[in-house]
């Protein structure tokens, strides 16, 4: 654990990230409305997320950002309105959509009893692809976790655990990233590197949907959506 002191540099390598095919993807929401216990979080929301864009959802606490991301990523079903993936109704193309989606929620989804390598192996297998140890080691290196590959994740600090989750960005080549507060617990250098990675992904033709309280540096690919 090299003493566990001092910030670890996150060195995201945009070249590690290759998309399977030239993309022109698009997730559309039409007249989206969500009611939670008789209160409308949002109503009549129209949203288009296309290749090459970073869309940032903004709004105060409790305005429904997380709820929106969960609806868009297909986890919540109690909403009204329509979702389209590449112009087809979501119901019909759900599996293709899921195969192209990478979702990172509030909770990192990292098993404390498994090592970072084992965690990543499971995530890769979940997409139906066994992957290789080298790939996973590279991805861990890219988030500054070299030397921690075999330490049980429970012994890592909160920030390092989130980096394990972020390694999936590099590892699995999904086109649509849905990230809920990805900067949580990440230190300043890490935030910069991650931001660069988001921009690189968008520029390479991916789409990013993100909520965060951090201010993102203005960029040509950034679009904002205000809730609440």
């Amino acid at each position, binding site marked *: 654990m090299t003493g566990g002191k001092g910030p670890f540099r996150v060195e995201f390598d945009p070249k590690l990230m290759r998309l399977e095919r030239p993309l022109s993807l698009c997730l559309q929401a039409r007249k989206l409305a969500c009611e939670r216990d008789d209160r409308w979080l949002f109503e009549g929301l129209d949203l288009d997320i296309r290749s090459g864009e970073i869309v940032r959802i903004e709004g105060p606490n409790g305005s429904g950002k997380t709820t929106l991301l969960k609806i868009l*990523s*297909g*986890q*919540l*079903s*109690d909403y009204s309105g329509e979702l389209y993936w590449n112009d087809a109704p979501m119901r019909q193309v759900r*599996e*293709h959509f*899921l*195969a192209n*989606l990478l*979702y990172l*929620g*509030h*909770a*990192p*989804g*990292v*098993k*404390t*009893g*498994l090592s970072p390598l*084992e965690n990543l*192996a*499971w*995530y890769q*297998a*979940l*997409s*139906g*692809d*066994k992957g290789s140890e080298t790939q996973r080691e590279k991805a861990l290196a890219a988030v500054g976790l070299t030397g921690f590959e075999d330490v049980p994740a429970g012994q890592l600090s909160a920030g390092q655990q989130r980096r394990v989750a972020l390694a999936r960005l590099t590892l699995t080549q999904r086109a649509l990233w849905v990230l809920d507060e990805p900067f949580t617990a990440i230190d300043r250098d890490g935030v910069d590197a991650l931001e660069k990675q988001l921009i690189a992904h968008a520029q390479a033709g991916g789409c990013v949907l993100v909520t965060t309280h951090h201010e993102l540096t203005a960029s040509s690919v950034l679009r904002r959506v205000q809730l609440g």
Partner: protein
Amino acid sequence: MHAAPGGLLVAVSATFKRDLTLMLRRRGEVLNPLVFFALVITLFPIGISPDPELLASIAPGLLWVAALLAALLSLDSLFRGDYDDGSLEQLLLAPHPLAALGLAKVAVHWLLTGLPLALMAPVLGIMLALPAGSYAVLALSLAVGTASLSLIGAIGAALTVGLARGGVLLSLLVLPLYIPVLIFGAGAVQAAILGDGIAPHLAILGALFTVSLMLAPWAIAASLRISING
């Protein structure tokens, strides 16, 4: 569909392996139900009477009830860990049927809880003066029965995973559904003691297992989706 054809197998076996590793690493998780089983069985002679004859006559029921409770209590953690750390969301978002992935988790639960309980029961049977000749049937009925218990119980576990106080509520939901399994499980052991035919009991236990195996995974998947919504 988009996902590779062999993909489902890879995902299911990886999930199976992951849960197995996790459980085996925390040995307590595997031992606790066994020790609970043994402890509860020791309570009965203390609370009722140490008379071997009396104990022998009630032993099949006691063993089955205690094993059932041990299996039940260990169910609470089946999905809770995944729910708490967010991997349940990831399971739901995998491009594979959730029912299959859930089934892999249930299989691990049975392998590390139900099966050991079945193997341990004969030892406790000796302590309760269970008549000879029924030990094999006891273990076999428990092995088949706990598989149904794991499947049915997993529905309850999936329904309560998002709730702060799952434990006792889970029992309330699941115990009534366990009763058929208990009847035929304990019945098989009784029949073996009395020298009656055990085949019908075991056949029905098998049928219950088949029905649970066919229906439970879908109910588990639906319940998990509800809990994630909650």
